[in-house]
């Protein structure tokens, strides 16, 4: 038995060493979450407008065109994490005047990462590890990058690829927090299936109520700090708009109305069907995300509408 335990411990030691080395390597890879965490702690006092939300707003809004703005939006970021980010980092932004948050077809109805199938829960790790979001206990898979081997492997391979071929690092951002990956991608043809994929899907009422709760919490935080909360629904390509579930759109609108009536620091404007955007193909790099061209005009529009 002693010999068995000794040999197993030796074997496990090798595995553990490799595991630790891999974990450290993956954590060392530059990523936008750590960048934003560091940036805002150092430069937060200069921030007047903070952008939260997911890839929709990240593609649609350029903080460089606004006055003293920074984006803490991330791909597929859920409202729960927007709430956490505002709660944690607003204290580094004493001059904060505006928070921009999308009320979206995606984020209001999304399920938590932990309830997603397969490897799709990996984003929960980023908030836990890089932003110190203490949602899960220390001994949990959410504290280890290598606990999701697929995402860790992918990150590592893309980093090595960027070093070897002098490419941009994937999952990184520019100096004001906007994600660089995919920004200049262009989908040649937006098909009915692409649109149906985005528009379809069964929605759980439980998740809708859960996400609404976080928006209300964000609104309260903004009210306490005397900050304006600008809620917006970004434009989408016209084919996509036509395919969206009308009941869900009505839910978004009615909730936005409820929020703006309850909190006087909250404002809402929907650009979902704004004809200045939705019919111009050059404004959309795919069915839901705006291109750089579209981003420029949408940011200018927001600037005018809300005097940012």
């Amino acid at each position: 038995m002693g010999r068995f335990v000794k040999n197993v411990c030796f074997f496990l030691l090798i595995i553990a060493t490799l595991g630790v080395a891999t974990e450290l390597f993956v954590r060392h890879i530059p990523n936008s979450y750590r960048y934003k965490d560091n940036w805002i702690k150092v430069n937060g006092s200069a921030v007047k407008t903070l952008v939260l939300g997911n890839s929709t707003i990240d593609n649609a809004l350029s903080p460089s065109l606004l006055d003293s703005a920074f984006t803490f939006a991330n791909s597929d970021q859920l409202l729960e994490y927007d709430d956490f980010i505002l709660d944690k980092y607003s204290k580094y932004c004493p001059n904060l005047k505006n928070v921009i948050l999308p009320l979206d077809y995606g984020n209001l109805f999304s399920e938590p990462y932990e309830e997603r199938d397969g490897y799709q829960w990996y984003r929960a790790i980023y908030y836990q590890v890089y932003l110190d979001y203490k949602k899960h206990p220390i001994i949990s898979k959410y504290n280890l990058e290598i606990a999701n081997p697929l995402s860790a492997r992918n990150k590592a391979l893309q980093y090595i690829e960027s070093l070897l071929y002098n490419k941009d690092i994937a999952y990184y951002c520019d100096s004001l927090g906007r994600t660089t990956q995919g920004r200049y991608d262009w989908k040649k043809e937006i098909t009915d299936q692409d649109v149906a994929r985005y528009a379809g899907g069964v929605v759980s009422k439980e998740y809708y109520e859960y996400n609404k709760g976080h928006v209300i919490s964000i609104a309260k935080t903004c009210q306490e700090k005397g900050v304006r909360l600008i809620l917006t629904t970004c434009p989408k390509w016209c084919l996509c708009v036509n395919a969206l579930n009308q009941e869900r759109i009505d839910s978004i609108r009615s909730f936005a109305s409820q929020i703006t009536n309850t909190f006087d620091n909250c404002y809402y404007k929907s650009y979902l069907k704004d004809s200045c955007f939705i019919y111009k193909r050059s404004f959309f790099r795919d069915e839901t995300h705006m291109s750089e061209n579209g981003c420029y005009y949408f940011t200018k529009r927001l600037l005018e509408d809300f005097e940012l």
Partner: protein
Amino acid sequence: MIFNSLDFILFLPIVFFLYWFLQNRLRSQNFFVVIASYVFYGWWDWRFLILIAITSLSSFVCGVIMERAEKVTERKACNFFNIVLNLGILATYKYYDFFAENLAALIKSICGYELDWITLNLILPVGISFYTFQALSYSIDVYKRKITATKDPIDFFAYISFFPQLVAGPIERATNLLPQFQKSRTFDYGKAVDGLRQMLWGFFKKIVVADNCAILVDATWAHYQEQSGLTLIIAAVLFSFQLYCDFSGYSDIAIGTARLFGINLKKNFDFPYFSRNISEFWRKWHISLMTWFRDYVYIPLGGSRCSKAKLIRNIFIVFLLSGLWHKPNWTYIAWGGYHAALISILVLLNVKTKYEHTVAYNRVLPTLKETAMMLITFILVVISRVFSRAETIGQAFDFIRCSYKNIAVQAPLFFFPQESLPHSVPFVIVIGLTVLIVIEWLQRNKEHALDIGGGHFYEQTMGKVVHILLHPNYDLFICQR
């Protein structure tokens, strides 16, 4: 608790050390097995423990009564009661909603009357199909006087709830497992190391092959109508490997874990994708379940000792029940029917389906004929997997239709159903499948893929390598004569 989780990684060493700490106290050791197994099972939901306790208790008590009963009618009644009770529990949790929904749909189509209220939406307890069958096999064997009923409830509860095989098999027979709990176990270094190797292989199959295949398979199935025919065929093949690696990987981990505790579980998968015909396939796939159906359904119905018509009837009954056992869904019933039909064809054509040895026995490579037979059998199995994967029979047929209808549509250069998927997945799958097939082929005559004999494997191998280096003219083939 699942095997590939942090919880299990912490659970196993604690249980291992405490178990062997109690090595000289058999009853305490068995009692500890029961506690540990109930903790393992209750980790999902403690309420499930009530059901497994009921099954264990009823089977144990019935066993004791049957052992004491002298009249056949008493034994029959007791056995019947136990079967009805346990199958009743299984049927309620697993099959009630399926039949209720179908009945409601039927009534609605006939008279338009809505009967949605009759479904109960019960949560299916994990592993209920496995431990129920395990308990029933004990009860039936005691009734038939094949085994003596145990009078020790702790031994029996340990037999039913032994955690490595509790949630996904193998379905153990009392003749194999129960005696192992009734006698002392001593720690065996070789057995434990071999168990760890088997666990390692199981984890490799599950984490490297199955989980990566699942990503591509799920992405393809989500939008299968848009994919090329080649993509769909590849997805069907990958799903076959995913299912095999998931299921057999879990069995390997279970068997390997049991060996750490000095318990030998029966082999559940015998490299089934190297089968030369569908009949051989079913002797190598989920062996514990198929032998259960053979012994408790097929043989009592007459087995193969009856007319051909009855033989085929028996085959269909077994496979339809097997399909239903897997999942209460028409697709699985169709899957069972498909396999029954294939075996029936072999029976009707009097094709030789049993072989003395495994394929390519004493050879490294199979003959062309053997290769063709394995490929044909594999293709037939892959077709059935479409039914396993589909939500409805219509979807299964639609998938098959799309696979040849879209065959002319250009497939991506590197199989990639969706741009958002990580690029490394196909690469890992190719490497993983290559390693899987090569190692399992080379080890097809062994107990498991990493069964490399006694503890002197490394010394012998290193010895051979050193000898070859010191004697450059050494003829490698001499040692193989």
